[in-house]
């Protein structure tokens, strides 16, 4: 395992020379409504979700970009639903993302990974998995307006959020 990680690090360090790739870093911030369905309960809406995502270890080659996004998403508590409401939580996520630039103006991103969820009000935690799709519209070379949709799933629960926000790209091609 250590050997594999070592080889991957070496490949990453020398990939610029070996494969004609360029490094890129991406930072995005977006917010929007979130929805959660727990078991047979109705679909519940959280008040809002807010996500900050950092993709420091990205590599670009041609129209393609591969990155390792690290993100924090806050799901606020839901409005009361009868006598119950969803507890708010933070999702710390680590994943793998792939981008393809269709044009200089539009890039599509898809990814997925694992999240560690903390329900801070009640000192509880859970593991969840996520997958995401995001449309990125580049009005300028290094900034984009993004519209991501994330789907989180874990035992007994499916949640998704739709967001709108902005992205800052440092280095790499589109």
């Amino acid at each position: 395992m250590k050997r594999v990680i070592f080889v991957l690090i070496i490949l990453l360090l020398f990939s610029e020379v070996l494969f004609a790739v360029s490094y890129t870093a991406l930072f995005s911030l977006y917010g929007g409504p979130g929805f959660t369905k727990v078991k047979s309960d109705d679909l519940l809406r959280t008040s809002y979700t807010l996500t900050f995502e950092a993709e420091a270890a990205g590599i670009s080659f041609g129209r393609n970009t591969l990155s390792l996004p690290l993100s924090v998403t806050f799901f606020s508590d839901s409005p009361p639903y009868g006598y119950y409401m969803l507890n708010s939580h933070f999702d710390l996520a680590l994943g793998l993302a792939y981008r393809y630039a269709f044009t200089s103006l539009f890039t599509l991103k898809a990814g997925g990974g694992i999240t560690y969820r903390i329900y801070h009000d009640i000192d509880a935690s859970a593991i969840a998995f996520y997958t995401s799709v995001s449309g990125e519209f580049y009005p300028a070379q290094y900034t984009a307006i993004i519209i991501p949709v994330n789907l989180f799933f874990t035992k007994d629960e499916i949640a998704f959020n739709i967001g709108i926000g902005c992205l800052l790209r440092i280095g790499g091609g589109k």
Partner: protein
Amino acid sequence: MRKLLVVILIAITFSSCEYFLGGGITVEPKVYMVAIGIGYEHSADISRLKYTKSDMNALSAQIANLLEGKMDYEILTCSDEEDGLTLRRMTSGGERETLYVWENGIVDTKTLSMALDNSLSKAEDGDVMIFYYAGHGDDETGCLAYTYEYGTNKYETISVRDLYDDMLSRWKGRKLLLLDSCFSGNFIENGDLAPTHTYDEKGNLTVFNPIGSMELSWQMLKGKDNAKPDVYVISGASRDQMTYEGVDGIEHGLFTYALLRYLDYDTQMEEATYTTKFDGKYISVSDLYNGIIDNFPNQNYFKRSTPNTTPSRFDMILFDFR
């Protein structure tokens, strides 16, 4: 592309209204409370608890004041008085009566359940049922030593399963256990969420341990479903911890003291107040839990006697004053 943007904007607009939310509350819920405070001063040698009965009375009075004119309530108190184990009842309509006195102090759980039945069997699904206990938690299982034979060391307990299966399941309502007793964390049923905090081998709370918590969370993926539990619990201690009273000159159990402070009971004058703190708001289980943590009086004791609560994705509203 414009069409796509329009569709997304419509989705966001709809999400900001109550379109996705289901039915609301139609019937005003009533609050039922059973408060047990046992001091053990009539036993031969069971260690005395000095403040459990006054805690029971203080909490009952504060909740009665809190609900007065806002929600109907029926409060049953059970304590070891001079004449025997005594069950009393008070209601929002002003009724005050003694229901039972068990003269030798011993009453089995079946008899106690039957006695509580007269009031609690009236509860409907939307009603709130609070079960408060201040007394000894037995022998590291946390069983509640609620009754004992006067003049002897003989006592009986309610186990976790007795309480859940034989007592609480008899009655309808949204249930909350408030347990100010040693090892009371045993009454919190494990679900599919893991705790974020951990304890050392002495049972003391340690600093937040993300790796340990992640491991537990991973194991909990195979855990039993506890998405919306039937019974919520706030315990005065974890599974391996004890609870304390009379610390730093505080004439209460520390857990109940924090609870009373959150509910605006006047701990200086030792009297229940009519507070406006919660006007226009609701009090949920996690509000209560966080209120207890925020008002816990001694941080050294907090590590040795850490309040715990049921880990659930859902929070439950107890009192709605909106």
